[in-house]
């Protein structure tokens, strides 16, 4: 039982790290988004400090969306997805493991890069810690929700754009509570813990809904 889970996890991780290095590219894209924002809103450091958490969260959301098409697309192209479907294992668990490996390869680098990018945005140490913590808790939810979109569009040739349109409305709650708990840590109209716990709850909900919906969609997409 545990053997195939860890084997699948290691396979996904190796593929994600070795093929194309999507984790590094995601971080580069994140850096590009963070760099481009001051050109749009102006180099005012006070303004940047105020909207900094929001910039980091939106950057992380976009970088996650960009990497999602690799989640099932490559496996479908080389036929591995059909083999996994026929293997008789619980597809929900397979999706969960794939999401976890995908997050380790693409989401975790974003979280690790966030404190460095936060310095560009003139965030103080408390804010940096808060944003990093919310990203650590929230980005798995983005990956898991995104898995639904990725599995729905897996049969399409150029599904990336449509997938982003489908996923973004579902990701709005995560974004709201991520940014608001980071904001709450900086200037507190509400205690930090309340939105943060809701963010944790959203991640847990996504960990249930995401694999189930995604596995259902993948079963329909095959055959």
């Amino acid at each position, binding site marked *: 039982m545990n053997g195939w889970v860890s084997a699948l996890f290691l396979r996904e991780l190796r593929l994600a790290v070795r093929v194309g290095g999507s984790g590094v590219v995601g971080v580069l894209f994140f850096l590009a988004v963070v760099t481009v924002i001051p050109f749009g809103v102006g180099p005012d450091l006070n303004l940047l400090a105020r909207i900094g958490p929001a910039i980091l969260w939106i950057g992380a959301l976009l970088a996650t969306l960009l990497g999602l098409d690799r989640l099932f697309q490559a496996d479908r192209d080389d036929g591995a997805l059909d083999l996994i479907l026929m293997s008789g294992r619980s597809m929900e668990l397979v999706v969960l493991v794939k999401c976890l490996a995908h997050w380790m390869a693409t989401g975790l680098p974003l979280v690790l890069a966030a404190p460095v990018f936060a310095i560009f945005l003139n965030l103080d140490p408390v804010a940096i810690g808060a944003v990093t913590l919310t990203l650590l808790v929230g980005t798995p939810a983005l990956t898991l929700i995104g898995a*639904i979109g990725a599995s*729905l*569009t897996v*049969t*399409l040739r150029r*599904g990336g754009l*449509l997938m982003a*349109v*489908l996923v*973004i*409305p*579902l990701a*709005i*709650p995560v974004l*709201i*509570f991520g940014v*608001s708990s980071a*904001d709450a840590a900086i200037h507190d*109209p*509400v205690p930090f813990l309340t*939105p943060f716990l*809701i963010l944790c709850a*959203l991640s847990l*909900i996504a960990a249930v*809904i995401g694999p189930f*919906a995604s596995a*259902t*969609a993948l079963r*329909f*997409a095959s055959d």
Partner: protein
Amino acid sequence: MAFWDFANPTRFMRLTDRVLPWLIGACAIAFAIGLYKSFFMAPEDYQQGDTVRIMFIHVPAAWLAMMCYSVMTLSSIGTLVWKHPLADVSAKSAAPLGAAFTFISLITGSLWGKPMWGTYWVWDARLTSVLVLFIMYLGLMALWRTMEDPIKAGKAAAVLTLVGALNLPIIKFSVDWWNTLHQPASVMRLDGPTIHPDMLIPLLVMALAFTLLFFTLHLMAMRNEILRRRVRSMRQKAAASARPAAATASTQAAE
């Protein structure tokens, strides 16, 4: 069992043939009464003047925008659980109607907002969640259009519709939270004095008229979709018989 009787598209077509004229008639009468009542008989609001009449279009459209998503959710359960052959037809033809009603409620809302609040758009919690709903309708329609096989597209859209139905309350809740955190509700105070019967009755008649309009259009759109699928399968059959080598092309049963 009546539920399964509709599973036969031919029987469904025959039934709607008989029902539709009555539905159209009832819809026209309800609109005639509702529009007359709301534009000529309902009194002006003492604060809002004639602009209050926008409400008679706006509120029913907003209700229908929600109801349409519920119809799609029920249809999606029908597709995934019972594999009801007309459920995905129903879900597919409801999506553009829902998008249209959502669009109407957004447009009339912003037309009402300009004289009342002095701006066409506020990032108010309610407006924002309706906008998200609108994007979800458009996303579903895009998903329907990008997949060629209607059966597969129906299943994919059903999964997304159900995920959306689970998510919509969460989105509503989080948008409420987001808005109260950023700006206290000062502009949006619809609950002034409770609504007077002179206005409530036209509003309810208009709501009935809109609901009848939805069902009329929905049934018509379902008939069109069934006919469209029949044309599709006939074309496939014709193509298959014209070139026997390509006879393996899957003809899917719309009949």
